[in-house]
């Protein structure tokens, strides 16, 4: 469960102009949710996702992950937290170019020090769910955009994080691939019970999600 209490975030762009990117946000997201943050460009979706994902700091308020306060952790602890509890899917596919699909998917598990046998089994499992099990030996640049993004999702999900944060995961994909990716993520959410949080304006995501949190100018207006 994720709980945000009175979270505020400012960006300073040379005094005195400051951007109040998150305005007093309080929010609860239960385990296993499939949730979208929507709203106009610049309303603060990415900023909020980064705050929850321990990628960025906030100026006031608290963020709890399973009752553990995470916004005040130092950089090292946040790195550990990201490694052990969170998964990320970025807009650009962002795979490690020198590693093949199998190694990319297993990367986080290797960092965590799981056994090779466990890793292999899990890689096969998620790869077949995401229909990339026939590409395990390929390097990322030999894959299409849709395939690469599925590898990125597989990498995020393989290590069984509590939450996956996906900022505009379909923005670089055509409609067919976007829809296929969303279907697969939906299936992962149901089968594995992992919470997935999106930030997007994409209609395909809007169709698939169960809960939509609307934002405007750094505040939650609905959801």
């Amino acid at each position, binding site marked *: 469960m994720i709980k945000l209490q009175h979270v505020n975030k400012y960006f300073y762009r040379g005094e005195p102009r400051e951007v109040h990117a998150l305005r007093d946000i309080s929010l609860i997201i239960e385990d296993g949710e499939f949730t979208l943050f929507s709203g106009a460009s610049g309303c603060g979706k990415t900023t909020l996702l*980064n705050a929850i*994902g321990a*990628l*960025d700091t906030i100026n006031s308020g608290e963020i709890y992950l399973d009752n553990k306060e995470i916004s005040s952790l130092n950089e*090292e602890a946040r*790195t*550990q937290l*990201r*490694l*052990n509890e*969170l*998964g*990320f899917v*970025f807009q*650009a596919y*962002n795979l*490690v*170019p*020198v*590693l093949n699909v199998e190694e990319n998917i297993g*990367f*986080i598990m290797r*960092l965590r020090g799981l056994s090779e046998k466990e890793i292999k089994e899990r890689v096969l499992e998620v790869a077949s769910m995401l229909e990339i099990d026939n590409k395990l030996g390929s390097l990322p640049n030999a894959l299409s955009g849709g395939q690469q993004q599925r590898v990125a999702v597989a*990498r*995020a999900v393989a290590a069984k994080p509590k939450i996956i944060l996906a900022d505009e995961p379909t923005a670089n994909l055509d409609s067919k691939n976007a829809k296929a990716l969303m279907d697969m993520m939906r299936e992962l959410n149901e089968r594995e019970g992992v919470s997935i949080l999106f930030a997007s304006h994409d209609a395909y995501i809007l169709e698939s999600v169960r809960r939509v949190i609307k934002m405007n100018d750094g505040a939650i207006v609905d959801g």
Partner: protein
Amino acid sequence: MFQLALKNILFYRGRSITTAVLTFVSTMLFIIFVSIQDGSHKSMLENSLKIYTGAIEIYHKEYRDTGGNEYLIEDVKTITDKLSEIEDIEAFAGRYETYGLLSSREHSAASMISGIDPAKERVLSSLKEARREGEFLSENSGNCLYMGAELVKKLHLKMGDEVAFVGSASDNSFAADILKLCGVFKTGLFEFDGSTSFINRSYFDSLMSAQNRASYITIKLKNMDDAQRVNSEILKLLNDDALESLTWKTLMKTLVEAMEVDSIFGYISLSLFFVVIFFVIMIYGFVNVSSRIREFGVLRCIGLSGANIFRLLFYEIFVLSSLAVVLATPIAGFLCYYFQLHPIVIEGMAEMYRDYGVVSDAIPLNFDIFTILWNLGVIYILNFLSIVYPYFYINSFKPIEASRHV
């Protein structure tokens, strides 16, 4: 992480090859440069020992610092009698050295004039072998001078020319004589060739009233390695507080120190070259890392720690340096070893570079495992240093910024 490093090395081939080749070249150069430097120092020492300096020499305690007639060895015979008792000594002789003015018809120069026993010096030194013209001294060579080639040049002398000598005898009385150039030697030790003349002791002693006196007694051993042991034996035998007996290590101290200074200058000029090479290595590493900012950013977003990234860079440079070092070391080591046994000879080199203390046309190399090991250590350290800046550069980005970096 190690596998990832290996894959990066294979993937970013341009950077890998440049780094490895540069490391290879610097390793080779470094080992060979140091080897030549050590080798030429060693041969300078050996030459100068062979030519003139004894393995052990006995002095009056004040002589080496103060000099002068007050501090001569007074009773040479008693000492040499004692020396004949020591098994390990091959030969010994007293030498009487003094400074004086030599004048030809139109030129003059100060010279060290050394009264030697020609028969004994044939065993003790290689002065006879250094002869270039005329004759080495003999038992009845009278007022003959055997003079360094450079000094001959200064005085514009021809064989058989007369030379006027003015000096101070061992009892501080005035000494002067007309001497004759009978032989010219050249050792290659520039200073020595430019300031030294030899003369038969028996003749010189009567001119200088130096019978049974000596500036020092020089000793040749059957085996140089025994110097320390024999020296303490000699000290015991002499049992005279006014005298000191010194091994070649002490005698050569100024030369050894000069060589150390020379080495330091050698390293400084070499390090200038290294600075350039490692800048290039660092720049290649840096460009490589810059193009991977986003990759590193993503890795840090998904949970790669700073330590992990450092390890990754470290493994990369470690593998590349090791590859270069493993190739370069045996080659360079073999070259050093080979040319230690068969020195490279460049005709006329000694002539050209004599001011730099080059003694012979041969470039001797020195093969020494420990020297090579510390050379390698330096190469590794420099390579490791080259990743420090790129590492801090990566970390200067926040992970989330870096992951969006284009």
